[in-house]
Every structure is written in structure tokens, then in C-alpha cells.
């Protein structure tokens, strides 16, 4: 197999938390030992509840927050220690789309300026005409007409703003697009448009996508593999079909059971199987398996032993002491 586009090895992101003047500093382990590889052209979903570390993981890979330990290998180069000026040379290959479409666009710039800005910075050799052509081309590609270039972000709906954000990210033809909850702020009918657009762009440009989302149904549509995080730790990493049809980790099973299905024959019974409890404080994670306090299958040894990711079959890995039982 060819070299992965991105390898993340035992990545940790710990934030120091001061409790007060005289108390010792503690660490909040937002991401605590994550491993995965991302292939060219592949979409990997990162899922879990709020506070599981999925956004922090994405930001650490983009080097928007510093990592505490571990490696981030981009096309064979370790980049976790790179300075921000050195990182700039990678920005054209590694782009991001954020959740709030309007807040991520500068209100004083026209759409044309917003989408052209990455080109000014990363492709200064292009003259005005070439730049305009690239901008018009990508705007059309994301489903916006060329006449939007002289308008301002506030004139657009949430879905259109997200298209503008995607155009800005795509104008440099990145190898990796990191999407942090890109459809969560949108109306249901608009979500589908954006999901389809991302799927089309991925296919046509052959880029990889790191798709951070709490919406497991959207992830199933778009991603080839899925990583499930809980309190900063990987619980399960599997090809999409395996994860959704035969989840091995009790947490994955609980997450999937909680997603409502618009079928009144099935849904009332599903409500009764909801995962109990809430995410414990990341400042005081449980010993052993971090999920054990909510796990319906937890036994005494789950408090003592930390489960490592083990191979179930092929690319399907799970971190549970009892997955074979």
C-alpha cells in the first residue's frame, strides 16, 4: 500500500488547568493517545459526544493548537514541531471548513475577495485574470453563480455561506479538507445539499476529508472509515459498514442506538435503550477504561486495566477488554 497522506501516532493534547493560586496545576487530557492513518482520497469520520476531543484532535492536526506528545506525519514529514511560518507552506494542502458558516467569513470582504485571499497568499504568481478565473471556477463548482463575487457574506443564507467557506478552502485544491461540524448549524434540507457537495468534491478532486461530526447518520453517508472517541481516547476505529452494522464497542453501540430514526414502528422502543449517565469530567477521568462508568457491560477489571486498540478483523479495531466475550 502507498504511503498514507497523514499519520497520527500516539497524539496527545493536554491543556494545563490552573485551579487557583496555591493548588497544583492539573492537566486536561483533551486528546490522549490517538493513532490513525488517512489515505489519499479517503474520508475519515471522527465522532463522539461533546467533550470527547474530536474538534481538538482536528485542530491539533491543523496545528491550530499545540500537541503535547506524539507525532503528526504529513506525507512522510513530521510536522508536529514545525513553526507557524514553516506550517504556512503546508496550508495550501491542508484546509479547513468550520461549523458556523457566517462567523468564519470576514463581513467586510466581498465573496470574491474571501475566495481569492488564499490564492493571494499561497499562489502570488497568479495574475489578476488567472486569479479571477480560479475564483469563478471554484464558485461555480460549489454551486454558486459567478455574480456573487461582489456581494457580502451577510447577504447569504447559512447554506450559501457554507458553500462560500468550502470554495475558499477548495480554491487551492488541498489534499486534505478538515471539516469541523460543517452541517450542524444548517437546516435539515440544506444539510443534504452540503453533504452531497462534499461527496462530489471529494470524488472529483480526489482529496481526503477528516470529517468531525456528532451526526452519525451524515458520517455514514460520507465516510469510508470512522474513529469513535470518548474522553480523548479512541474506542473503536473501523470501516463504515463494519462500524454501523457490527459495532463492537459498547460505547459505539450506545451512540448508534441514541440516533433517532423517523419510523414510529421502531423509534419508541429505541428510546428505552438509551445510554445512561453523562460524560465524566475530563479533569478526573475514570481509572482503567474511561468508559466504564457508563458501560452496561463493565466488570471489576475494567477499573484496573486500560484497554488498548485490538484488531477485530482487517481494519476493524476496538479498545474494550470484553469485546471477544
Amino acid at each position, binding site marked *: 500500500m502507498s504511503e498514507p497522506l497523514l499519520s497520527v501516532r500516539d497524539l496527545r493534547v493536554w491543556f494545563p488547568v490552573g485551579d487557583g493560586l496555591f493548588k497544583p496545576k492539573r492537566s486536561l487530557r483533551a486528546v490522549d493517545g490517538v493513532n490513525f492513518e488517512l489515505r489519499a482520497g479517503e474520508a475519515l469520520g471522527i465522532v463522539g*459526544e*461533546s467533550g470527547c476531543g474530536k474538534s481538538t484532535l482536528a485542530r491539533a492536526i491543523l496545528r491550530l493548537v499545540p500537541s503535547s506528545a506524539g507525532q503528526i506525519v504529513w506525507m512522510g514529514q513530521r510536522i508536529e514541531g514545525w513553526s507557524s511560518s514553516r506550517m504556512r507552506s503546508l496550508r495550501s494542502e491542508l484546509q479547513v471548513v468550520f461549523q458556523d458558516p457566517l462567523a468564519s467569513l470576514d463581513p467586510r470582504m466581498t465573496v470574491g475577495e474571501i475566495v481569492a485571499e488564499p490564492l493571494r497568499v499561497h499562489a502570488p504568481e497568479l495574475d489578476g485574470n488567472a486569479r479571477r478565473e480560479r475564483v469563478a471556477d471554484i464558485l461555480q463548482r460549489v454551486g454558486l453563480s459567478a455574480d456573487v463575487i461582489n456581494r457580502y457574506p451577510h447577504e447569504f*443564507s447559512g*447554506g*450559501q455561506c457554507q458553500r462560500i467557506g468550502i470554495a475558499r478552502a477548495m480554491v487551492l485544491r488541498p489534499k486534505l479538507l478538515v471539516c469541523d461540524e460543517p452541517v450542524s448549524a444548517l*437546516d*435539515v*434540507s*440544506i*444539510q*443534504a*445539499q452540503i*453533504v*452531497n457537495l462534499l*461527496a462530489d468534491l471529494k470524488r472529483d478532486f480526489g482529496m481526503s476529508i477528516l470529517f468531525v461530526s*456528532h*451526526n*452519525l*447518520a*451524515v458520517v*455514514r*453517508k*460520507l465516510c469510508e472509515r470512522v474513529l469513535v472517541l470518548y474522553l480523548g481516547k479512541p474506542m473503536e476505529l473501523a470501516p463504515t*459498514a463494519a462500524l*454501523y*452494522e457490527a459495532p463492537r464497542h459498547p460505547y459505539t453501540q*450506545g*451512540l*448508534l*442506538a*441514541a*440516533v*433517532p*430514526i*423517523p*419510523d*414510529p*414502528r*421502531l*423509534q*419508541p422502543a*429505541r*428510546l*428505552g435503550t*438509551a*445510554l*445512561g*449517565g*453523562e*460524560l465524566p469530567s475530563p479533569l478526573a477521568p475514570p481509572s482503567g477504561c474511561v468508559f466504564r462508568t457508563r458501560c452496561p457491560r463493565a466488570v471489576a477489571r475494567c477499573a484496573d486495566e486500560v484497554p488498548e486498540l485490538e484488531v477485530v478483523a482487517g481494519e476493524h479495531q476496538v479498545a474494550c477488554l470484553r469485546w471477544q466475550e
Partner: protein
Amino acid sequence: MKPVLDIRDLGVCFATPDGEVRAVNEFSLQIAPGECIGIVGESGAGKSQSFLAVMGLLPANAVVSGSARLGDQELLGADDAVLNSVRGVDLAMIFQDPMTSLTPHIRIGEQIAESVIRHRGASRDEARRRALELLQLVQVTDAERRLDQYPHELSGGMRQRVMIAIALACDPKMLIADEPTTALDVTIQAQILALLAQLKRERGMSMVLITHDLGVVAGVADRVAVMYGGRVVEQGPVSQILLAPRHPYTRALLASMPRIDEVGNEPLQAIAGQPPNPRRLPAGCAFHPRCQSVQTECREQRPTLLPEGERWLACHHPETREVSS
């Protein structure tokens, strides 16, 4: 049976500097004792505005017409004394964001007790005991200790449980829940929905569940009303509406939602365009610019909401094909 809440021909209109905005038109709904009605629609469909009007909670520039009777009491146009004797007593409402609905500097126990003291004339000790009972009823863990905590010390799910406890303080006949789980993780959403379903079952309380998620409706509601552009376009028993939708919008909305139990990665059936701006509603049927079965009369004449068995439908050319599922 006499409905608990009888809404007839409700209209909500806002006077704005740019002219009149009609948010809700000809909204009629009867809710039977112990019944749960789901109100579904996208942003601007008028679902929240309808029930804020019923509660008398709209801003001063709103003009409300029609009738909403709780038992024998007319609510629309009633003075504050009447509304205050009804709101929080027979008719309670909970909102999307529990943090902004709770007072940040008052302890949880006192906020629940306030309602019991004000409306039931309970003593402080009685009210505190009642507050504890209510917290236990809504399954707040460690309820005794929570009484003396402040809202910021609670998680989002616990805060929504506290809001439900406050709403239940005076045994309301009817609970209006406006997107009660939208801000919560899917696991916590499932817990809150299971709680609401249980309260409805055990207490015979009527409920209105306002949501954008048809899956949420499927688990709890008996009937569902689908709104678009300020009007109900289809209404009926939840199994008929979700399993055999006849309005093209209902059908399109269902088809645009990715389902967790759906295999395959063919593109989602997105609805083109975007929800209409209430300021500039299209002529004829408000859905016609996005409708796949649009014909000439749809552009010119607004379809009337007409009964069809147990269902109500507003469409010139309703779908007749069976839904495959």
C-alpha cells in the same frame, strides 16, 4: 373528548420597519388530553412563533389574531393577570437552551421552589421538599445535593431536566417543549426524550413537541403537523405522516435526512433552494419553487388545508406513490 388546548385560525404578524411580516397563518390545532403533537419544520416555518403566541410571549410588535382556548379560558388577548395564572400552572413551556432559561445566580432548588410558592402558596419547607421530589421525578442524579447548586455547575442535560422539573411543578395539563433536545448530545437527547415519553404516559399530560427532526417526533408523538412558510401543510397520525407522507414537502424532508439504519452511499435527495423568507413568501403554494411536482396552479393559487380521513393536507397535487422502506 374536549381538547385541552383548542387553537383556531391563529395568525401572527410582525410590524417591522420594512413592512408587515406574516409568520403564522390560519393555524388550527386541537390537542386531546394525554396526547403528544409534534410540530415539525425548518427555520422560519412558524412553529415556535405559533406557541409563543399561545403563551403570550411574543414581543410588542407582534399582532396576534384567532383564538387559543385552554379549557374554557381564552388565551389570545388575555391580560397579564389571566396569563400569569395559567402560565407555569396549567400551561408550561420549556426551551432549547436551558442555560439562558435559568437564572444564573439563584440555586436550583430555589428556582424550582419559586413556582410552587408563587402558584400554590406553599411554605418554604414544603416547597423545598417538593423541589426535591421533582428533581427525583426527572431523574436528576444526586438530587439532594443539586438543590443547592447553581445552574453553571450542571451539565446541559441536567439543566434541561431542571427546566422540566420547574415546568412540572404545578402539574400542568399541557407542556410545550420547543426544541428541548436540539442543543444536547444525541445520547442525552435520547435520555430526555425517554423522560418526556414516560411523563406523558404516567401523568397523562398533553404535550407539544416542536422540533426540526422527524426522528424525534417518531419516538414520542401521536400526531404530527408539518409546517412550511408559516402554514401547516400536512397533519395527521404520526404513522401516516412518516410512513406514507402525501405532501411533497413532507416526503422531500424525509428523503433528505440521512438515516442511521440506511446502507449505501448514493447521494442524499437534497431539497433544492432554501426555506422561504417570511418577508417574501412565494405566491400560490409557498413550497412550489422547491417542489418536484409543481404545476401551473401551484404557482398561482394557494392550496387549502383539507381533511382526508384522519389526515389534513394542503396540496394541489399530492403524492400518491407508496414510500419504499
